């Protein structure tokens, strides 16, 4: 049984290296038939560049998603804390009869936006 498994493993390894060799020979033939000139790349190079930009996009997308989620969560926390603080300041104002200067137009707009 052991021998059979070893034999099978060898067959897979040979198939793997044969496939690598075929790929290498094909690419070599294409590069030979299409020497790269200024601005003209051969199909093999383009194929490699295409898979490179695909994986670069996936990497950037994977980086973007968590940041966007974290940003949303931080903004929600800021809004909640701001509103809590404003409420507490108003309560303090009532308790102490302290007259604070009224909110400027800019502050009113900002408070509305944060609500």
């Amino acid at each position, binding site marked *: 049984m052991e021998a059979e498994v070893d034999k099978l493993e060898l067959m897979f390894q040979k198939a793997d290296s044969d496939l690598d060799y075929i790929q290498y020979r094909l690419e070599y033939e294409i590069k030979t038939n299409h020497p790269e000139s200024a601005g003209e790349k051969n199909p093999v190079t383009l194929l490699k560049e295409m898979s490179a930009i695909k994986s670069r*996009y996936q990497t*950037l997308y994977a980086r*973007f998603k968590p940041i966007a989620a974290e940003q949303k969560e931080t903004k929600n926390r800021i809004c909640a804390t701001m509103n809590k603080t404003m409420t507490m300041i108003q309560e303090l104002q009532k308790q102490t009869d302290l007259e604070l200067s009224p909110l400027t137009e800019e502050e009113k707009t*900002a408070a509305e936006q944060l609500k």
Partner: protein
Amino acid sequence: TLKDDVSILLDKARLENEESMSFIKTTKVMMK
């Protein structure tokens, strides 16, 4: 296509950044 996906994500990232910058400005107005 991939180009469209990249353009869409780029626009989304730009929009998010603009929103965040204005959000930070607004919050700073209130904190003064």
